[in-house]
């Protein structure tokens, strides 16, 4: 499976944009991609969820695993622009506080 598109902002934050459905099919690839980004020396990551139409516990697991890896490396993982479905699943799983969402990927590390 090919990687999701990434870009680096002016302040050196890597933005990853998963598309489609983050389920057991797509989650392992996202998990590996985020892991590789931290291994490559960047620990400030934004996952732009504006094109993620669906997430389930497999997708949440990939985000939590990457959040821990990024924080262990001295950085953080933040999420931006989640769709309504993603917001609902974050609330249902009580993860909306640990994975706080920001309006846009470019401003997620401004504060």
């Amino acid at each position, binding site marked *: 499976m090919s990687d999701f598109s990434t870009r680096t902002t002016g302040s050196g934050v890597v933005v990853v944009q998963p598309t489609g459905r983050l389920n057991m099919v797509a989650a392992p690839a996202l998990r590996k991609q985020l892991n590789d980004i931290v291994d490559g020396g960047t620990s400030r990551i934004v996952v732009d969820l504006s094109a993620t139409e669906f997430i*389930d516990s497999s997708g*949440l*697991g990939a985000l939590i695993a990457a959040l821990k890896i990024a924080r262990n490396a001295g950085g953080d993982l933040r999420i931006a622009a989640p769709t309504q479905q993603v917001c609902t699943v974050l609330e249902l799983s009580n993860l909306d506080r640990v994975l706080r969402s920001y309006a846009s990927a470019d401003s997620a590390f401004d504060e």
Partner: protein
Amino acid sequence: MSEYALDAQTGPDTLEEIQRTLEQAWSEGNVADDTKMCIELAVSEIATNIIEYSGDGKPVRLRMVVDVRPDSVAVNFTDDGHPAPVDLARITMPGEAAESGRGLALAHRVLDELSYSRDPDGNHWTLIRRRSE
């Protein structure tokens, strides 16, 4: 109101086939977006469980039936894998740091009924959500 069924040997495409079957079911009956979202999430969680664990990673025969009723949506799964070691009375949402184990808890939270039984045909899961419209 009618039923939509899928018979599959589980594999990498199964979740997509399941989602297509749900979308066929949504094409009738004016099911509210909130109801659809809850069913799609619960179905993904239970199907993932069956695909990953019922055959220990090997394919199993799976049958899904979606029943769009006037007052609820019911989804039944049957598979010929080994018994699922679940106790639905003891489902809890794992803590923030857990990387897995949320699937059944999420399904339970968005459904009005979630049940599991085992008989000579295999495993049976029943998922019911009342329609909110």
